[in-house]
């Protein structure tokens, strides 16, 4: 079997459903692949290691990809795991922020992902505000706790399938403002990237096919798939939060992981350029390809 090292973006969570299910169902093995998945603690690390040739595939985010490519990392997207943004601006449901315009003069927490401030800027500008009208606070590890304890009035970088459930379980439901509805072009949240030199690696195709099969299985048999996912590491994954997040994540998995929406990438690249997160728009072919 051919060995493939996959670096996840974060600890295993329902976002990785297709990967885990494919692994558990032996889809990778059937395709002649020996896949090892590794969890990092710092989401910015996996792309670097793939770029350095220390792993074959990394789970990353589309906005980060633009930044990475701009910084000269030899990376290219070859598949999409989650085809919509998950990122959102979250406030307390019973708080006094009903619209983004209400953020004026408030504190907004963010986790340093590298571009949250740009998202926020775009969202604010739709409501006639600028970053100067709010106070940005890096709350690093603790998005929901800082919101729940009133340290900040809103957080950007919270996942709609995750933090919302988390807050609900804690008894303080939140309200999400979806980035793509508030002036940010739509993008793929979770993508798979590889080194540009490895774009012709035939294993990638087998890998994506396995994922596609797993995704279809998940959509068709959500409860069974949940059990498979949960049982892959029962000790860590079997809890209320994952169960709920699973439900909310299901409908966001990309049904055609190999397909590349070129317009979407180009449009988002333009947006990134506008936000000065990147300083040129490279040719799409250089950093994204689909697998026919």
């Amino acid at each position, binding site marked *: 079997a051919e060995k493939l090292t996959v670096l996840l973006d974060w600890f295993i969570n329902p976002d990785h459903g297709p990967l885990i299910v494919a692994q558990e169902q032996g889809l990778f093995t059937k395709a002649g692949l020996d896949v090892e998945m590794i969890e990092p*603690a710092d989401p910015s690390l996996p792309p670097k290691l793939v770029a350095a040739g220390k792993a074959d595939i990394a789970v990353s985010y589309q906005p980060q990809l633009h930044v990475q490519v701009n910084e000269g990392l030899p990376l290219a997207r070859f598949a999409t795991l989650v085809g919509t943004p998950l990122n959102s601006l979250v406030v307390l449901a019973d708080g006094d922020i009903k619209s983004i315009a209400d953020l004026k003069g408030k504190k907004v927490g963010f986790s340093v992902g590298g571009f949250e401030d740009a998202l926020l800027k775009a969202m604010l500008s739709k409501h006639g505000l600028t970053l100067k009208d709010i106070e940005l606070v890096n709350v690093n590890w603790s998005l929901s706790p800082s919101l*729940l304890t009133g340290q900040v009035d809103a957080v950007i970088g919270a996942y709609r399938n995750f933090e919302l459930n988390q807050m609900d379980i*804690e008894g303080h439901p939140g309200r999400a403002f979806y980035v793509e509805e508030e002036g940010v072009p739509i993008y793929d949240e979770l993508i798979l990237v590889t080194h540009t030199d490895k774009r012709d690696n035939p294993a990638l195709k087998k890998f994506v096919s396995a994922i596609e099969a797993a995704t279809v299985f998940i959509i068709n048999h959500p409860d069974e798939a949940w059990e498979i996912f949960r049982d892959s590491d029962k000790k*860590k994954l079997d809890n209320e939060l994952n169960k709920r997040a699973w439900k909310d994540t299901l409908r966001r998995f990309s049904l055609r992981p190999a397909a590349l929406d070129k317009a979407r990438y180009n449009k988002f690249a333009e947006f990134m350029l506008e936000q000065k997160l990147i300083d040129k728009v490279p040719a799409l072919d250089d950093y994204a390809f689909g697998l026919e």
Partner: protein
Amino acid sequence: MIRSIITTLGILLAWHVVILVLAPPRFIFPGPWDVMVAFVDNFSLLIENLAITSVEIVVGLFIGCVLGMLSALLLISFDGARRWLLPVLVVSQAIPVFALAPLLTLWFGYGIAPKIIMASLIIFFPVSAACHDGLRYAPTSRLDLARTMGASNWAILRHIRLPSALPAIASGVRVAAAVAPIGAVVGEWVGSSKGLGYIMLHANARMQTDLMFAALFLLCLASVALYFSVNRLLDNLLSWQADTTRHNQFQYSQQGTPRQ
């Protein structure tokens, strides 16, 4: 033994009181009972990961101490080395994990090695500094005597400076023993899927604060056990020191003594 149980109970009580008085949200600071439940529920998970972290701690402590002592020896043996190496050592201390993590993973992969390196690195400086100070301040009279006996620099180092520095070195090793667990945990941030540090990070990200505290509690127990083992070991090694110094309070010796 009894004492450590009482201490543990005392901490639990203090904890409970804090919960009662400050009433922090459960997802920030859970009460002892919640943690206990999480501990029991995840017992085998915790123990498995404790084993891994313990290995990292002990190996890291060992390597860090050995390297720290070696570097102190180097610093003291070569007067030139000291001037140039010391700044490098200080710098090594100021580098945050996430700057090192990519390099470590790049060079050492994802196994246990980078965690041990991290733990060693954190321990390295306190030990090295303490050793170096101890070695520096050997009493002149002992050095002079050794020199008249025709001792080589190496023999002086080994037989005079090193034993003279032992109390200082012991101090450094004690600090290292207390710092090693955090070293291993920080090492697990470098990227791992195992160990108490991973469990804590994971639980923290999931807001499973009770599990995080259960892991934390275990880590603390391990730390205290390690510290006191090392402490006892060092005290045994340094029994000669006890004769010339005294830590306990002064004892009046005679009932008829005229002073109060």
